[in-house]
């Protein structure tokens, strides 16, 4: 197994990342209070949530810097989860009949 050749973050970088996460969280909460954004609220919230998810996984969990086998193992579950979600929705939709 091999590790990705990228410089590792330092504590200062981790604090910067925490600030970014804080700003995104504040933006998420703000979006729920702005009526003008009603139509695009879901897209905005899911995008910001995905960004936070990727930042934590990439930097705090070191997946950007670690062996690809770890990323593959995690991605397997991450990709299977929405497939499972679709299967559950489809099954229930068919069973309930709507």
């Amino acid at each position, binding site marked *: *197994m*091999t*590790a*990705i*050749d990228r*410089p*590792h973050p*330092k*504590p200062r970088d*981790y*604090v910067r*990342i*925490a600030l970014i*996460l*804080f700003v995104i*969280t504040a933006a*998420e*909460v703000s*979006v*729920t209070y702005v009526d003008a954004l009603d139509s695009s*609220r*879901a897209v905005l*919230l*899911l995008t*910001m*949530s995905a960004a*936070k*998810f990727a930042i*934590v*996984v990439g*930097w*705090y*969990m*070191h997946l950007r*810097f*670690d*062996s*690809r*086998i*770890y990323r593959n*193992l*995690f*991605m*397997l*579950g*991450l990709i*299977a*989860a*929405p497939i*499972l*979600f679709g299967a*559950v*929705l489809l099954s*229930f939709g068919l069973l309930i009949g709507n």
Partner: protein
Amino acid sequence: MVVATDQTEHAGHPDPTNVGKVAMWAFLGSECLFFGTLISTFLLYHNTTLDGPTAQEIFDVPFTSVSSFVLLMSSLTMVLAHYAAGRRDWRRMRVWLLATAGLGLVFLSGQAYEFTNFVHEGLTVTTSPFGSAFFVLTGFHGGHVAIGVLMLLATTFMSFSGRLHEGQGMNVELVGLYWHFVDIVWIVIFTVVYLLQV
């Protein structure tokens, strides 16, 4: 480009062929499916409130936002603990581990307060499918946080007692991976369960 792992750069996770780390990532991948199922169930039933309160009536987004912030900050303290372990700065590692456990306990206290409020307002696990799905999902997440706190405290006390030495970096990293996973699950729950429902 890929290169062999450098012991200095990767000091916090020194052995790239560590079976424990592979197992932890496989476990976290399977946990994605576990929480994916619970979130799917919540989305199926989030509008089935029967005579019970709805999400709009009961959720306190400002309060939950503070809880989310606390959990996010615990990821910062966790990664700082991991960094300190990589530099073999055990004293600082213990401080950050205890800070992480403390923030986890604050989050759990907030969840207990929130659950108590919901029960007083008429939402219990048996009130409606919405209530069942909500309490099962957030309850299981809270259970994971509680297990994480125990792991953090156990690692800290093992360090105090001197039972962890050279292998400490990897132990802290595995606990850290679990803790960060608990954080990313909450990132999804906070958006899907709370923000999209109000």
